[in-house]
């Protein structure tokens, strides 16, 4: 019995020991397990250079040596040559005598040139033989030379016939003295006996002359340059009223190789507004712009002249404030408009070109200017988030107050929600010195708790758009000057509370 009890005790102990392992834990759960993670999302700093690099601003922005920004647009307006403005008339010189002294001023032409280098045209000569036998006519003039040699031609003329012939004028130089007399001599001899005879006469005609170079007193020439427009794409990114341009300057730039005074005059200058209406653009151009020209001594060189159009001498600021899509210019050119009796020289292909350069220093007042940038944003990372909050730290090196809003879109680019109920100020304007340069950045910390609706939108989003509204601080009396190297630092962190599965 005693042994039996002992055996039972032993077996009981073993059974108890074994039973201790007989209640396995098959599953695991967590009470109130909602870990919250604090994660860095972004730590980035961008300069204006970065921000604008891919915008349409990029084509128009330039910077000075201090990296101060300016919007500039440059467009060629017109280009012309004397060959397009001035055509030489046909000149006919009657040869009634064997020695003719012809006063150019008596001819029915409007030029008073002392030298013409021909590149084309014809020298046509004709004689009528009133004798009874054929004659040979020799014509010569020292006022037309080829490589320094006087023009000399001969023509056989049958009896009773008006014979004509011509040579190319290309390469000939027309040159007359201060007396304005063109001298032409001819003689006629019979073919059979070589006797000098007198014939009825003839003519020397300069027909369809083309010139390379002319020297002389120019008549006043009026040339219509037609109408052209300067596209102002640079202003398309601005909404009317979003900025105030403080000191824009438009400059007419003329590069002139023509050795004669030319006056450019705007006959109809207008701003073409977005609504299709037009706004009169008053500027010194309407009163005419005389520009520099090379003298005959200087030869063929280009002279630059500029006409500055600014707030003092025009309504440019008013026109640009209306954010026109283009400025339309109809121009006339006047060659020697003041009828100067001076000797000018011109190459036929000398170029006179005008361009309009509009320069808008970014000393501007921002009145709600908006920048927009879209990002891929995978909201799936927030799928298990029960709550989320963002902490945004912005240090602002721009002289502007920044307010932002973030919009979330799904894959079909349907707007889901915005991050904030309305745009919030995320950065106060930095302090600027009297020249507009930054001397103290500002830092602003913003924490945003997402409500359930916004969190749901965030989870379903596949892209986000950040819209940044920039304003010049109300307290600033001066405009904001922007520099390429002004920067904004963005540090974004997220707190995400995970919901248990």
């Amino acid at each position, binding site marked *: 019995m005693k042994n039996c009890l002992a055996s039972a005790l032993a077996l009981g102990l073993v059974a108890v020991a074994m039973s201790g392992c007989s209640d396995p834990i098959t599953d695991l759960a967590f009470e109130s397990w909602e870990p*919250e993670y604090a994660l860095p999302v972004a730590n980035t700093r961008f300069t204006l250079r970065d921000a604008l690099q891919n915008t349409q601003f990029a084509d128009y922005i330039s910077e000075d040596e201090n990296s101060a920004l300016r919007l500039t647009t440059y467009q060629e307006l017109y280009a012309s040559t004397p060959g397009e403005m001035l055509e030489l008339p046909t000149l006919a010189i009657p040869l009634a005598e064997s020695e003719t002294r012809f006063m150019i001023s008596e001819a029915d032409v409007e030029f008073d040139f002392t030298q013409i280098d021909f590149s084309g045209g014809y020298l046509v000569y004709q004689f009528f033989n009133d004798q009874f036998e054929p004659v040979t006519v020799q014509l010569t003039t020292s006022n037309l030379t080829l490589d320094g040699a006087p023009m000399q031609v001969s023509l056989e003329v049958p009896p009773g016939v008006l014979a004509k012939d011509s040579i190319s004028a290309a390469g000939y130089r027309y040159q007359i003295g201060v007396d304005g007399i063109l001298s032409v001599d001819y003689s006629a001899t019979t073919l059979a006996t070589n006797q000098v005879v007198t014939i009825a006469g003839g003519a020397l005609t300069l027909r369809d002359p083309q010139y390379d170079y002319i020297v002389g007193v120019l008549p006043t020439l009026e040339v219509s340059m037609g109408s052209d427009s300067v596209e102002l794409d640079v202003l398309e990114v601005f909404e009317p009223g979003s900025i105030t341009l403080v000191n824009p300057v438009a400059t007419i730039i003329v590069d002139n190789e023509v050795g004669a005074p030319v006056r450019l005059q705007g006959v109809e200058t207008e701003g073409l507004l977005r609504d299709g209406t037009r706004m009169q653009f008053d500027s010194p151009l309407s009163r005419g712009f005389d520009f520099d020209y090379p003298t005959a001594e200087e030869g063929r060189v280009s002279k630059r002249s500029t006409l500055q159009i600014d707030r003092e001498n025009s309504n440019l600021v008013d026109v640009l404030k209306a954010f026109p899509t283009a400025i339309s210019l109809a121009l006339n050119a006047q060659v020697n408009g003041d009828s100067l009796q001076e000797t000018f020289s011109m190459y036929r292909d000398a170029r006179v070109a005008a361009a309009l350069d509009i320069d808008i220093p970014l000393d501007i007042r921002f009145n709600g200017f908006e920048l927009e940038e879209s990002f891929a944003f995978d909201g799936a990372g927030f799928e298990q988030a029960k709550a989320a909050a963002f902490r945004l730290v912005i240090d602002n090196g721009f002289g502007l107050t920044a307010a932002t809003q973030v919009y979330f879109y799904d894959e079909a680019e349907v707007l889901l929600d915005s991050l904030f109920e309305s745009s919030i100020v995320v950065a106060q304007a930095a302090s600027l010195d009297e020249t507009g340069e930054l001397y103290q950045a500002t830092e602003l910390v913003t924490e945003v708790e997402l409500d359930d609706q916004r969190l749901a939108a965030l989870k379903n989003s596949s892209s986000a758009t950040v819209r940044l509204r920039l304003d010049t601080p109300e307290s600033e009396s001066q405009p904001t000057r922007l520099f390429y190297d002004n920067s904004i630092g963005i540090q974004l*962190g997220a707190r995400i509370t995970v919901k248990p599965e």
Partner: protein
Amino acid sequence: MMNLSKSLISALVLSAAFVPQASAQLDIMMPLQYGWQQTVGNPAALQDHRITVGLFSVGGGYETPISVTEAGTVTDGTLVVESERLISRLESRGNNQQFRADVDGLAFNYRRRGWQVGVSHRIRAAGTLDLPRDLIQLAAHGNARYVGQSLSVMPMIDGAAFQEFAVNGAVTFMESLTIGARAKYLAGSAATMTAQADAIIYTDPNFFESTITSDILINTAGVPVEFNDEGVEVGSFEPLQQAGSGFGLDLGIVFRPNDKMEAGLSVRDLGAISWSKNARQHRSQGSFSFRGYEGNIFDEQGQMFDVEATVDSVLAAVEFTTTDAEFTTTLPTTAQGTFRYLASKTTVLNATVYAQQATTWQAGFGVGVGQRVGEWLHVGALAGLKADGGYLGANILIDVFGPQIYVACDNVLAAANLQKANSAYFRAGLNLAFNKIKSPKEVRGFYDVRVEGINK
């Protein structure tokens, strides 16, 4: 991200609650019970049979600073972890989850008068996992609560599996003093050793920039281990391969001033193993900061703000470089003293005190009683006290004409409810004992008090 976190905390909690361990108390009853295990506990302990054959014995146990019920509540097989309660019970460091498992193979011992010699074979595995409180806090709460603070999150993992081929011997002097020793050749199978474990996570309060500073050195051997972007890859393991070798030594002394008292002292597991096969050193040293996206947000392609990728990049930042490097691990040395007093012909009172070097020195104390019941049954009980509380152990030995079957457990409460136990150890085995040496006064319950004929 979230799955990862949950997996992490699951693994941590489970390891905190269930990782079996072997601490000093695992062996606490070995020198107090009869049979071959007594000599294993103290090589100076003489067997009370001329021939003892250890056939088979398995033992295993664990110790954790947090029991299952301390970590949460169990309902219908589901452990509901209460994070705050779990964390409140953790120290910043030294939360050692320890395990040990032994499989004793064949052993042979020959006893003649006051001396004995023997040989034995064992397979041993032991390990320690120290989970820092910061890691549990990070997994339970996330890092948001600890913004502006530094969290030390690197666990320490140490462990080894090896075979032990031993020769033991003992000799008695002056009738009352027996000294013994066991020399062991150690054939290592696999090991991991954390030599340096500093990984600090700091989350800056400004925009939560996260910085991980690491100074980590982990040695592994026997198992191909690779640290890569996916985490840790562990190759296949052959339990009986030899990846290292070494020597160990157990020393013991037993003093019997009279027929009723016996005092013993043993120092076990002096020695070390040098690891050479697949021996690698994995080092991470540096500082890694995460600031999220740092490019130009105005790039034409736009940018992907992927929170999950951010978390992954943070976790993957601790990059390891792996090089071949041999290393040495020392055995977990144990010192144990025992005292036994024969209270009656069938009753023995005993006491034991021990100290063991796991990652730190651990100590414990216990008192017990052994009772012979009838001709072939002996039962014992032991009440102990150690750092994490008291425990109650029991053992049974059935000795029937040669075969000895024994079962021992150091924490019977754990046996009744494992989920409440911070530690438990269980051992069972079978010995064969032949040619019993007659003890004076026919007392079998008190082992070998002045065995007749010793030194005579």
